[in-house]
Structures are given as structure tokens and as C-alpha cells.
């Protein structure tokens, strides 16, 4: 049920995103979503792609520190208030969210990507709740 997300450690300086992105592009890795979190000193670039293995190899060859992480994609229905409904559910369950961001799968489905501190626990609880978890197959459909 998890989606694999690739995280890359980058400096926080102008042009720091160019090197990893161009390396991926040159290798023909197609990115479905890209999201940067940063502090004043450094950043973590998070990308979702169908081709994790290739992306991982390309980035490591280019000397980057890389990690693969399990994240959950939750479908946002195309109705007003859908996002706040999801957030409310997550909050009411007392789940510890490390971060989240919006993304759109190749299927065109808008989703919220969540990284929970305890992913297994979150998955179990959200399954029971009224949430549609988008699988990797659905996301890349």
C-alpha cells in the first residue's frame, strides 16, 4: 500500500537542485512529483518516480546521499472541504505526521502524500477510517 519516495540531501544554496534534477533527467527518469523541504543550512529533496532503482543508482553515482522511504498517498475527492476532512481524520487518530504535501499521480488523481512517524500504525488506522489509500499501481496508472 505504500508509495516509495526518494529523498536526497542537498545544500541550501542557489542551483543546488540543478545537479540532482539534471542527473535524473539525463538518465531518463521521469518524476511524478518533486518537493523540497529546507532549513537555512540544508534541504531535503523528495521525489516520487516509477523508476526508483534507476533513480537511486544515478544519484549515488553522482555522489548524493539518498534514502528510500515509505509514504502514504491518500486520495483527495474533488469536493469542497475534502482536504480538511482528511487532516481532521489524521488529527483525531493522534497520528504523528512528519510532513505532507500535495501531488498528482500519472493517473491524474490528486493525492496528499503523508510521511508518518509510525507508518504501519498509520496505515492500519487509516484503512479503518473513511480514507482512500492510493496504491503504487493506482498512482502510476
Amino acid at each position, binding site marked *: 500500500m505504500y508509495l516509495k519516495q526518494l*529523498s536526497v*540531501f542537498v545544500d541550501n544554496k542557489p542551483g543546488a537542485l540543478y545537479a540532482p534534477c539534471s542527473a535524473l533527467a539525463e538518465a531518463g527518469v521521469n518524476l511524478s512529483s518533486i518537493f523540497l523541504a529546507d*532549513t537555512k543550512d*540544508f534541504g*531535503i529533496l523528495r521525489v516520487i518516480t516509477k523508476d526508483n532503482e534507476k533513480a537511486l543508482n544515478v544519484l549515488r553515482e553522482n555522489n548524493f*546521499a*539518498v*534514502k528510500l522511504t515509505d509514504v502514504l498517498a491518500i486520495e483527495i475527492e474533488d469536493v469542497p472541504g475534502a482536504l480538511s476532512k482528511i487532516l481532521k481524520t489524521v488529527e483525531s487518530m493522534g497520528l504523528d505526521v512528519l510532513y505532507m504535501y500535495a501531488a498528482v499521480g500519472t493517473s491524474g488523481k490528486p493525492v496528499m502524500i503523508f510521511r508518518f512517524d509510525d507508518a504501519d500504525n498509520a496505515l492500519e488506522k487509516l484503512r479503518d477510517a473513511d480514507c482512500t489509500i492510493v496504491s503504487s499501481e493506482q498512482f502510476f496508472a
Partner: protein
Amino acid sequence: MAKPYNPVSAADYLPRHLLQEIQLKRLQNIIKHEYDNVPFYRQRMDEKGVKPEDIKTLKDIQLLPFTMKKDLRDTYPFGLFAVPMNKIVRLHASSGTTGKPIVVGYTQEDVDSWTNCMARALAAGGVTSNDIIQNSYGYGLFTGGLGAHNGIEALGATVVPTSGGNTERQIMLMRDFGVNGICCTPSYFIHLCEKAAEMGVNVKALPIRVGFFGAEPWTQEMRQRIEEASGIETFDIYGLSEMSGPGVGIECEHHCGLHIFEETFYPEIIDPDTGEVLPDGERGELVFTTINKFGMPMIRYRTRDLTRIIPEPCPCGRTLRRIDRISARSDDMFIIRGVNVFPSQIESAFLSVDATALPHYRITLTRRPDGLDDMLIEIEVREEQFSDDMRKMNELQKKFSHEIERILGIRAMVKIVQPGAIPRSEGKAKRVFDLRNTTK
């Protein structure tokens, strides 16, 4: 296992009284040579009211003036040469990061004496004529390359003169030639091991069994790291171009201090503030007199390296006295906000946060318009330390920062940076960038 006999090492085992006889004869000879041929030394000695004939015992060396690095700069380029230029067969020079370089000149006899010491150093590390030694010290004006090269050949071993740089090819040759030993800076060897791992070459599985590392101070932690990554035995080799180059001192198989080739380099330990000679066992500044060098002898040269002479004899049987390993050269030391800082202290802070490996790092010193100094320490993150969790990365940065403050007593700006962000040098690693003079 019996060690192969190396005739070159015989001088390491002279009875002390014989050694001291040789030392005294050589000292008297060299002082007379200096007095007669170098106006600089004659003037210095006259100022102190000492004549060559006043040197009657080894202890009388204390009557002689010191030589400082500054004296070499002030007499640039040939002011301290003691023979006519037609006797000089080789020049070396330091890379002058600040001001003029230091120039040294050698007669053929000087080169031979240096070569002999270097060969004995290699022999102390078990190298024989059966070995193939890769020499990754830079060839050129730097004494490391040619110094080690001559010693390897003199021992009858096979030298692979790769010099520094082109690390991938070095690894390929090391593997294909079945290299047994290497001479280079410790930081370059760490770089080489990392590169080998990236290339999928397992250094542990290669025939290489020994490394001679010098030209920069290295910590015990670096030694462990090298030994774990490569499985080789590491020998600390000491030298400086003002003396000759590599091969002033060497560890033996017991790795408990460095034997000094005393019949060539006469060592003293002094109180760096008063200049007073300290007894064996006490820590102070290392001072050398080159008693078997004629092109450009050095009288009581202050190395600015801090160590002590180990009074006890070594279990290996060599009669040459030992000094403690030098973990910091005072040249690398810098002063910030009134505190003396050695890069090795900062390295120990890194290792107390993560003992698995010493990171690549860079220290930059700057001065604010109001005159206050800042220290920025950039540390490369390794993939094993990287977490997708931003809190953990902030914590890692804070841990480095706390440890540095705990050890130095002053605060630094600590910044973790991506792997490869800090440029690599393949010679002596430059860690400290002091921009305070230029920024005003």
C-alpha cells in the same frame, strides 16, 4: 616469523656510546662548516659569543642559536646554503601558502644520506626487495615524492611512481600490479579507499599490507579508520623539508612512538616559551640539528611540533630514541577569540558524534566589520547519516555543534553539507581557510 635482514638498518642498532661519539664528531664538523661558510650563522654565533671550538660535548649544543622558519624566508632563496652552487644537485621548495616559499638545497652526499634514512624507515615497516611500493606522494618541488622514491629504490623494492592524483587509475594499478605497500598522506589514502569502494574494489582483498603515512598530522582515529577500511598495517613517518624530507623518524613494528634517525638528525625538546632544553620525557617543542647535511645544514631548527622524547628503550632493540606521535603541527593551529585550536580537536569532536568515519570538513575563519571572529565548520554528510526526517538532520547538526563547543570551549557555526561539496586535495589536505587578513 623471522624478519628478513636488512643491512641498511644496521645503524638503527648502534650501542648508545658509539652513536653519541658519531653525533659529537658530526656536530663539531657541521658547526665549523656553518661558521666558515654561512655568514648568517657566523653572525648569529658571534652575537652569542660562541665559537665552533666551544662545542666540546653534545650538551654544548645548547650554546648555539636557534633557527626559525622565518630565518629561511628572510634568506630566500639561497642565503643559508653552505656550499657553492656547483655542489648543489637538487632544490626543493615548500608550497608557500603565505609569503615566500622555503627553499632547500642538497649536495649529492645529502641526497644519499636522506635516501639512506628513507630506506631504513621502509625497512622498519618490513619492506624488502620483494615488495612493490606505490608512491602516491606528489613528485616535484615537494620533498615527499622524490624522497620516498629514492628510499624505495635504495632498498631494492620496486617503486610505482604514481605521484598524487588520478585516483581511479591509482586503484587500478594497485590491483593489477599486486602492490604490497603505499606511501602517501593519510587523508589521501582515506580518499583512495573511499574511491575504491565506489569502484567496487575491495582493498582488503588486495595484496597491499603496509602503508607509510606522513606529511600531515593524523589522529589515532584516522589510523583505526584506515586499518579497518583497508586491513593494512600503518606506519607513521615523520619528516620535514627543512631537515631533508620524509624519513626523519619512523614507527617500528611496535607502534609506540617514532624512532629518530639520530646519527643524522640530532633532536632536542625545548620549552617553546623560554627556549630551555627539557629532559627526556617532558613535552615541548621538537628541535633538530642536521649533523650530516652539508648543502644547507640547520642548527637547532624549531619545528613547532609538540612532542616528547620517550626515555625508555624500545622492545624492538633499536637504540635510536623515540618521540611521541605528533597529533598536531603547530602550523595547523589557529587562534580564534583567544583560544588555540588544533584541527585534530575538531576531528575528535566529529568522532565522538559518529565514530564510524572521519568526515570531510572545512574550517573557514572570517572577521566581522566590528572585529569579531567567526568560525564556520562545514561537514559532509555520509549516506548512512542521512535521514529523510528533517528533525534528525537538525539534531545531527546540533550534535556536531555541541561537541565542538564542549571540546573547544567556543561556539562555531556548524553546517552539514552534501557529499562532495568540499573540494578534495590529493596532496596535503588543506582544512583551514583563514580569511581574516583579507576581509579586514
